[in-house]
């Protein structure tokens, strides 16, 4: 398979598996679903002849493909209570960290929380996020500002403060 030698596969898993897991979790709210997305994205990457100009180009492809895979997965919610047919997983999916802040972020609408993740954690610009999500820059700016506003209000209302 093109792009596929053991060394490269190992590099890809070590470099991007966690990123895909986090984006998947932001979208799907389940780490087991996010894990499925991980497999799907890697298999897609490994079955094509890709030539990336740079590591950042490679990462951008991974992020964009993960977002698209998550959107596709959400569409399969036509199937109420859909469950994956993947063979039995002998290890449970990673547990999301026990964090009040994460809980609050996860209450945001999907587009706001994924924008917040890509901006604050991955360090992408509004323009880059817009490109990845297939949205306009103004739309992403709105997601970020509304997301921040809601978080601020939730934090203030809950009497919580983010401390050093």
């Amino acid at each position, binding site marked *: 398979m093109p792009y596929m030698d053991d060394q490269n596969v190992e590099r890809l*898993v070590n470099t991007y598996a966690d990123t895909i897991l986090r984006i998947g979790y932001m979208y799907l709210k389940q780490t087991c679903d996010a894990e499925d997305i991980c497999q799907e994205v890697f298999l897609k990457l490994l079955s094509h002849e890709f030539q990336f100009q740079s590591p950042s180009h490679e990462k951008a492809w991974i992020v964009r493909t993960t977002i698209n895979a998550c959107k596709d997965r959400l569409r*399969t919610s036509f199937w109420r209570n859909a469950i994956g047919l993947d063979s039995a997983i002998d290890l449970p999916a990673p547990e999301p960290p026990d964090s009040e802040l994460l809980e609050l972020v996860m209450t945001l609408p999907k587009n706001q929380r994924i924008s917040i993740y890509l901006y604050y954690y991955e360090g992408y610009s509004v323009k880059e996020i817009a490109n990845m999500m297939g949205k306009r820059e103004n739309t992403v700016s709105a997601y970020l500002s509304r997301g921040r506003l809601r978080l601020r209000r939730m934090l203030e209302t809950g009497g919580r403060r983010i401390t050093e």
Partner: protein
Amino acid sequence: MDHLFDRQFQATMDRLCFSSREKKRMLSQLTQTATNSESRVIPMKKRTAGKVFAMIAACMLITAGSAMAMSRIMWYEGSSNAGYDYNTTADMAAAQEEAQGTQGTAMPQLPDELTGGFQFDGGVQVKTQGKDEEDNVVGSWKDFHGHYVDADGKELTVAMSYNLTGDDGREATEVRSINDVPVTYNYDEYLFLPDENTELDAKTKDRMEQDDHFFVSYGSDAQETVCYSSVRFQKGGISYSVFTSDKVSADELFSIAEELISR
């Protein structure tokens, strides 16, 4: 807030990660998949799981009016992998043979190519349940879907099922007899909505009641309207549906049906 939020959020997300053991397992699975696939690589062409499953949902909803056992199926629920289960028609045929169970007839192997230049791209097994109004499961079965793509990127799906739907009680867009097999063609419009609690306007409600070729389906990411063309027939105890949301004419679909009937 930004500065402090930034740091705390980063620290939190750092903790959401795979363990070394999980990464090793993933690596092993990926490497094994690559080894098994090397001799028969079929490049994954433009295809989204969402699009395929939207078609599947459409096919299922088309048959939603059918009676099964003593109850009337109101909902279909299905589950399958996001990617292909089978890369070749032979692999899928082997799985179909295994799934035959007590069914009288084996599902035939699908052709690698269909009329119109559609090449087999991959197949999935879909575990399906039919449920009634009370959400009781009134039947369950395994369907098999072969996905085809032509050189222009047009996609269509051939779905095979032991669930014999019979007359779904509506007037088909067109019916033709091919080798004494009645084949129905329908052109249906689907309105996909994200939330099943969405309030429908009067016009939409009217259409749902009056128009046999208009359906509302729930669970999509965003509201959108998609039109599906399909042909359906039964042969040898198996129900076949060929459907697409791309521009494939009724004549082309009837030709494909003829090809499948003649096998």
